[in-house]
């Protein structure tokens, strides 16, 4: 039962995030977003940038583990 709680929570959370994501991209088609740089004004650019940055950070972090990760008692 308790295992289900967290899973249900995750399912609802995922659904809400997907719905908001779709809405946020659709809104972009209704008006022209002004920004400091033309790049940011491209349809859905911040969305794309956020997604790609996040994946990049996590994957580079994983790769960095090979170089920077030591045992917990490394300095002891």
């Amino acid at each position, binding site marked *: 039962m308790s*295992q289900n709680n967290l899973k249900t929570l995750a399912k609802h959370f995922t659904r809400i995030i997907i719905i908001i994501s779709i809405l946020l991209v659709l809104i972009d088609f209704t008006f022209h977003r002004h920004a400091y740089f033309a*790049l940011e004004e491209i349809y859905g650019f911040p969305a794309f*940038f956020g997604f790609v940055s*996040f994946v990049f950070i*996590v994957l580079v972090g994983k790769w960095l583990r090979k170089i*920077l990760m030591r045992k*917990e008692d490394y300095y002891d």
Partner: protein
Amino acid sequence: MTNMIPGLWMILVSIFLPVIPQYFRQPVMLLSVAASALSLLNGFGVFVEWEILGNTLILYQADNLTLPFALIFHLASVLVIIYGWHNKNLMENMATLAYAGAAIGAVHAGDFFSLFIWWEATALTSVFIVLAGNTPSARSSAMRYLIIQVCSGVLLLIGASLMTLQTGNYLLTKLDLSNTFGLFIFLAFGIKAAFPLLNGWLQDSYPESSPTGTVALSAFTTKLAIYALARTFPGTDTLIWIGAIMTAFPVFFAVIENDLRRVLSFSLNNQLGFMVVGIGIGTELSLNGTVAHAFVHIIYKALLFMSMGAVLHRVGTTKASELGGLYKYMPFTTVFCIIGAMSISAFPLFSGFVAKSLIMSALGGQGLILIYFVLFFASAGVLEHSGIKIPYFAFFAHERKTKVKEAPFNMLLAMGIAAFLCIGIGIFPNYLYSILPYAVEYHPYTIDHIISQLQLLVFAILAFLFLVKFKLYPAEIKSTVLNSDWFYRRMLPGIGKPLFQTLQIVVNRLYLILNALFEFSTGRSKKFANLSYFKVTTPSFAATILIAILFVMLVLAVI
């Protein structure tokens, strides 16, 4: 009351704390902060000067830049005291109060020598907070912390002395990097502001402190450095690049770090980067951005450290690999943590949004496109480590089998106040804007800006869900992640030890030869002084050498 230096009440009271019955200590500490906070009503001007050896030191001045820092430092002191209401550790209570007082005093110093005194005072008081972590690793971390903080002070003193000798001026004025003293002072501030590669002490020491200690540490030292940089190096181009690197590189470390309080220390480093960029641009808008960011950052960073402190207090660890599922047992802490996480991630209606926007707008206005997108990228990084990783691994991730109690009331109260401020400032940013150094008409809530920021954040969350779904998100692993402190914890001793051992052998051989010569010439066997003390004893030995080298540099520079 205009002749009482702000913060001095707190230091005086901290000295008398041992004679105050334990039950009254926290109330008395709060009273001392209130007494010190009266100085906020004094307005601007120079209030206390000290004639010494024919020179005048400015011990207490106030202007449009000191006010926001003094205000937030007093506020942070109140939060720290409420959060640590249950704390019976006398040494830690004394150190915390004196440390906060010293930081407040430092903000009001008007010349480099008074600043130096407070600068060292914050170092010497805060090291006891690290020591109060009371584990073997906290003790050795505290030693390293002290050495580095003192080095920063020595550099500041060298810079200030050179400046006085060369220009005859020692007041806090705008400096640049074209002369030696400027470089010394820049480096002194850079150490405390945790510039890239000078940042090792921060992630080393903060997570070693007690639950309450880390909250105090997170508020003052680094923001004092930001204040000092904003006062003396506004518009220094180099800072834009240093700041941009600071926002980006800790992000990758935070992804793989297992200790959640260390993750927050990397996150703190990344936040300082935003402020440093603002100082580097040096326009009224960007300096306002830096001050606003420092102000809101102290609150939400304290909130995040408080929530992790509560977890540490109840569970005994903040290692991601041993946490998870706490949302059921610590619901209030969970909610407060999420509010802190949303603030630092700069969701609209939270305090991070209204402060970070100023810096981003300043970058946009200057046409600094590359830096702008580095900070945009770093914003996704903030969401990763502070927005998602902290609450996710502590409170969700997987179900917890053993029961845990909710945090004590005083901790919840302090977190509640901080959370209230995070949302309050987010919804009513004009209260914050009205205390900034420069009058700038600014509206953060434009539809363009809200949609842009929400797209960035929500799609980054989507990326997280995607990575978890396809099992690409790195699992929590018990580990040590190497950081720039590796250079002086492993590399330097690695080179230094054989060097000193060789030196030791040479000296000992010379001693034997001298002895033999002495015996030969006099026919008597009498030894010289025993040289066996000449042994490498790290780290105090290394520190002595380091400070001696700095001293020689000072002498050479003067000559």
